[in-house]
């Protein structure tokens, strides 16, 4: 397993360097020399300042040197200065926007995958019975609905008419006027605690799998997951720091509900149909017959054998989904006025803010690769055949 992880990591880094190189040359090779237009020929910038800017941005150097410098700086997390918000650092802009996007879309991703998997499992098992039709039509209907319209209708109904949920934005400014934290601190704390707990749970389950004996193994897994959940509750309710921040985290969570629910509603059907076909295929396998012949109940056959094995192709599809987290989010961020990376990407490209666009693209690349990597690991954990093959 370790060798597998290391190999995947190395592949990932290599792939990223290639990706970054291609993106860099693509953007800098754009016709019309945007860089010069923006600084060298911009009449609004006085000649001296222009000279300073050009030198600071390194635009007077040969292309290859510029490229070399960019790469060196990039891996020191220095992405240069924004053209349009000059002299703001690109890294500051991204540091502000990225956590918001990740928190929103990761939550949505987990939510719609989980809903889709459960629904798909149900469909496969109730094949040909009542209920199947209703769920399928409902799911596919939502899947094919015109998304921005659906999102606006949801906002209108749940926020404007019923007033159950906040209308848009990611927080309520009134509550934050005297807040001792910035929104980003809260976002990051939320993200870190959730991530830490997830990693903790995953590690416990992984380690527990090494226990040879049956009951201690099951016990360790359940105990580990419960302990992880308990740690999370303890942090946000039990510690001084957590309790102080909790109302603000709660405000953000409240703002998350509607976009996550909408994203789940329109996306779960894809996962549902995938799970369903994967389950139906698995149920034709001989080992399902073996499981039945052993005297297992239908429920145990479904959950322990069919669903567990049918999970594999669903996990593969997660790779693609993780990669679309950002670009698929542009629409969502616009409709819900959620100021995240999607918005940065659109404005930086349309304003030809090359350093910002480049860095934004890189982060999409990084997220896609990291997502891919995590799913690969997950797949290795789920499917013992992969572990050895790697």
């Amino acid at each position, binding site marked *: 397993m370790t060798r597998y992880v290391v190999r995947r990591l190395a592949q990932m880094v290599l792939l990223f360097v290639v990706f970054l190189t291609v993106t860099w040359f693509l953007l800098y090779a754009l016709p019309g020399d945007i860089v010069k237009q923006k600084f060298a020929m911009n009449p609004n910038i006085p000649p001296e300042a222009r000279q300073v800017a050009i030198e600071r941005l390194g635009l007077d150097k040969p292309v290859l040197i510029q490229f070399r410098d960019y790469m060196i700086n990039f891996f020191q997390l220095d992405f240069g200065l924004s053209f349009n918000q000059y002299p703001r650092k690109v890294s500051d802009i991204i540091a502000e926007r990225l956590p918001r996007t990740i928190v929103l879309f990761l939550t949505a991703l987990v939510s719609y995958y989980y809903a889709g998997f459960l629904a798909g499992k149900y469909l496969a098992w109730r094949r040909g019975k009542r209920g199947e039709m209703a769920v399928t039509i409902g799911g596919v209907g939502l899947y094919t609905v015109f998304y921005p319209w659906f999102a606006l209708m949801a906002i209108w109904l749940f926020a404007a008419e019923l007033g159950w949920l906040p209308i848009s934005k990611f927080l309520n400014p009134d509550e934050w006027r005297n807040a001792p934290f910035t929104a980003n601190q809260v976002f990051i704390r939320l993200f870190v605690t959730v991530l830490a707990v997830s990693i903790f749970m995953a590690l416990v389950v992984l380690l527990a799998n090494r226990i*040879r*004996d*049956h*009951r*201690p193994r099951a016990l360790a897994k359940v105990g580990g997951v419960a302990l992880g959940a308990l740690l999370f509750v303890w942090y946000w309710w039990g510690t001084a720091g957590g309790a102080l921040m909790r109302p603000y985290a709660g405000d953000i969570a409240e703002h998350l509900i509607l976009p996550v629910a909408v994203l789940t509603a329109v996306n779960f059907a894809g996962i549902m149909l995938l799970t369903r076909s994967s389950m139906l295929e698995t149920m034709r*396998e*001989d*080992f399902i*017959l*073996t*499981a*039945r*012949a*052993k*005297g*297992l*109940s239908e429920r145990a056959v479904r959950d322990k*054998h069919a669903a*567990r*094995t049918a999970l*594999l192709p669903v996990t593969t599809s997660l790779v693609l989904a993780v990669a679309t987290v950002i670009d698929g989010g542009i629409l969502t961020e616009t409709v819900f006025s959620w100021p995240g990376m999607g918005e940065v990407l659109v404005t930086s490209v349309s304003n030809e803010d090359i350093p910002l666009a480049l860095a934004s693209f890189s982060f999409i690349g990084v997220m896609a690769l990291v997502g891919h990597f995590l799913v690969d690991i997950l797949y290795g954990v*789920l*499917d*013992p*055949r992969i572990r*050895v093959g790697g």
Partner: protein
Amino acid sequence: MSAPPLLEVDHLVMNYVTEKGDVSAVEDVSFTLHQGEALGLVGESGCGKTSIAMSLLRLQAENAVFKSGEIRLNGENLLALPEDEMRRHRWKDIAMVFQGAMNAWNPVYRVGDQIREALDLHFRPRLSDAEATERISRLFEMVGLNPAMANRYPHEFSGGMRQRAVIAMALSCDPSIIIADEPTTALDVIVQDQILQELKKIQRELGMAIIYISHDIAVIAEVTDTIGIMYAGKLVELGPTVEVFARPKHPYAYLLLSSTPSVTGPRRKLAPLEGEPPNLLNPPTGCRFHPRCPFATERCSIEEPPMETIADGHRVACWNWREVPVSIAQEARP
């Protein structure tokens, strides 16, 4: 043969309901199985062998319908049991080595854990971890596997090893009956023979009953006491293996045996078995074998021949069994 039978299949009729009509896959089949007995079921592909095997565990396909008959295990009709009681009999009383058992393992769980699953279901009180591990080790040794392999995943086993492990799993709950449906067809001949011999040895040692299913009559001949010949959903001849081999009475059995190279003796003269087995959606009237039978008379296409006892434990369903040459060896002379 005076002990009450372990298993009685009594005039079993099972159809598959399809869009095109009913497939008559098991038609009026009766046989008994005593403790420690090895019974073989032979017949061409599609004659209903697997359908019978699945019926015994009540794992028949969803579109299968039992029209009549009973399957009695120690006198209790399995077909009348509620599902959760039937579940308790599976594996504990009747275990199975499936056709294509190569894929009998779930790829994501360790082999030992999959055996453990059966132990946990059927042993009361439950076995402790140590007891279970010990039991699985012993089973592995019995089928010639290294006990350490129990901690491995199925893909780490070769085909033959996987099949041995399947046998270990079938033995795990001390069943009184094991059904082996084409247990070795996917393996190469040498491994096939090794595994069959071992299965036979274990079966004799543990004194359990076994039903071997195969389309290969030579395989069955080596390991069974009793043999049943099936044709198009019907059991057409049932008798002691030696007897049926030496003096088959049913024309189909006769042709089948004479077209098979002898297991022990010199190669028999090949008498052709012409034509195809019938479509079970619409089986022939009267005797199902009549379109292919060289001994057929007018009566055969109209009236169905009943199972007739012609000697102790030897039954045949044919109007004209007396016409069938007594010995294949004699007939072989031109």
